[in-house]
């Protein structure tokens, strides 16, 4: 059987990366406390919610993400790629702990869950760690991650502004004047979260990708009130439908994964028909922005590796740095043949909303910012080695795309920048011979101290 959310908590605790907080905490203070802890946080007592515990910031560092993935920090992209290459279909089981407690109809009350208030300008309490399952009659199942803003005991807003498969499913339902059934799953293993973040081809099943990452199938149970299946080992599931109202309801602001306070957006409304959870549920509060960022890193890095290989370029290392929120910037080193610096940039800039790509030769350690600066200083001529691609797909939460001017449901575009920091064609490698100290291996400093 594959590991679940609680196994990750145990892994983190065993590695000294989880802090238990035993004193009662008000849900209004959960996020601020998690932000002050160096470790992941586990709140054992929540004021007003005696049946609940809350876990947050589980994978808000590269180290903790690597721990959860069971690999080294440099190997998170190859590890993720491995899972994508070997999907394992999910399997249906008759029951699961996520349905130990069932609340239907008016008893399905979102205020019974310790929803945290996270940031000073948020439009309300948010559910940030979601796996949202939907289905389209033609395309089949989709799993993505979308934030939910509390509105009423039975309704939330949902951020469906960005281009995604579920946005397409919703639009298709809307064209038929029908609601779109969804199930919101909270408290699953990071592999399921990563698979949901992956921009898979529309026909691909993200839960099979999660199975590939685990090396074992994800067990699913049928929902109670919608025609969908959800991971059986989840902590909490919200079943319901996106109302056929289009992008008309206010949602946001929210502290975005770009580390910026977002704008009010216009989005659909999610109406809850049923809430199911474990008997002793743990609410998962995804801590913005770091945890969201690091969950994007393996996805973007693996997509970069794939794009480079499709372009017949041999990657050596790849990194989605935290400064680019592990999403907008990709840096790769390659074994370069003539012209491949530019080919690599074109490939990397084709990944999702990556707007800055930097490529170096394989003698540069791309994890060292000083080496990267050195390569960009001495291997780049701006009139030859900088690519600008205007009018590509952008993302709303980048203020420079001026999304506020687009109106309800509008999609922004962006210019993309590529920097080829490989040794230019025609410049002999010898020109870059690094200085070496005379007698470096013959003498040792400690002998003179």
């Amino acid at each position, binding site marked *: 059987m594959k590991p679940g959310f609680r196994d990750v908590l145990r892994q983190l605790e065993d590695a000294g990366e989880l802090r238990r907080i035993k004193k009662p905490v*008000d*849900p*209004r203070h959960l996020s601020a406390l998690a932000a002050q802890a160096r470790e992941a946080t586990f709140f054992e007592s929540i*004021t*007003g*919610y005696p049946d609940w515990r809350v876990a947050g910031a589980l994978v808000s560092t590269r180290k903790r993400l690597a721990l959860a993935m069971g690999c080294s920090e440099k190997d998170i992209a190859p590890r993720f790629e491995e899972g994508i290459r070997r999907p394992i279909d999910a399997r249906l089981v008759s029951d699961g702990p996520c349905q130990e407690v069932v609340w239907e109809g008016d008893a399905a009350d*979102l*205020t*019974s869950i*310790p*929803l945290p*208030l996270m*940031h*000073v*300008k*948020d*439009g*309300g*309490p948010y559910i940030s760690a979601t796996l949202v399952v939907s289905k389209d009659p033609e395309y089949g199942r989709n799993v993505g991650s979308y934030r939910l803003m*509390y*509105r*009423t*005991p039975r*309704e939330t807003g949902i951020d469906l502004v960005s281009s995604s498969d579920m946005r397409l499913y919703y639009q298709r339902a809307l064209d038929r004047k029908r609601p779109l059934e969804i199930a919101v799953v909270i408290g699953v293993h990071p592999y399921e979260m990563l698979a949901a973040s992956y921009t898979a081809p529309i026909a691909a099943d993200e839960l099979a990708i999660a199975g590939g990452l685990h090396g074992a199938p994800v067990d699913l149970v049928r929902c109670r009130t919608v025609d969908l299946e959800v991971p059986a080992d989840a902590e909490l599931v919200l079943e319901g439908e996106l109302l056929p109202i289009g992008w008309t*309801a*206010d949602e*946001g*602001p929210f502290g975005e994964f770009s580390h910026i*306070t977002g*704008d*009010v957006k216009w989005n659909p409304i999610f109406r809850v028909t049923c809430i199911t959870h474990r008997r002793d549920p743990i609410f998962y509060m995804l801590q913005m922005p770091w945890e969201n960022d690091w969950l994007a890193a393996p996805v973007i890095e693996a997509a970069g590796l794939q794009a480079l290989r499709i372009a017949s370029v041999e990657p050596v290392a790849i990194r989605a740095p935290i400064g680019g929120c592990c999403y907008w910037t990709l840096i790769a080193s390659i074994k370069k043949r003539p012209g491949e610096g530019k080919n690599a940039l074109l490939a990397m800039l084709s990944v999702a909303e990556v707007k800055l790509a930097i490529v170096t030769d394989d003698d540069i350690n791309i994890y060292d910012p000083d080496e990267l600066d050195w390569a960009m200083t001495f291997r780049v001529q701006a009139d030859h080695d900088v690519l600008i691609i205007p009018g590509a797909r952008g993302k709303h939460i980048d203020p420079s795309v001026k999304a506020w001017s687009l109106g309800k449901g509008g999609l922004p575009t962006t210019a993309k920048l590529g920097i080829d920091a490989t040794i230019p064609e025609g410049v002999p490698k010898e020109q870059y011979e690094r200085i070496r100290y005379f007698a470096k291996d013959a003498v040792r400093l400690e002998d003179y101290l």
Partner: protein
Amino acid sequence: MSPLAERLVLELRERPRHFAELVEAHTDVAWRDFLRAWGELRASDLLKRDDEGRYLITPGGRSVTAV
């Protein structure tokens, strides 16, 4: 409307406020009770938003729209 929801209406008629400002003004209230009252306001169709993302209620205003 509950007394708390009515207080929130008065506060939002007075001036636009971020959600967190409303929360801060009522920290003595249990979180669940606050969320229920907020739900009443949402359901009442009175709320508007300004460009800063603040909530407000204008005289005779209905439905959630930007102002």
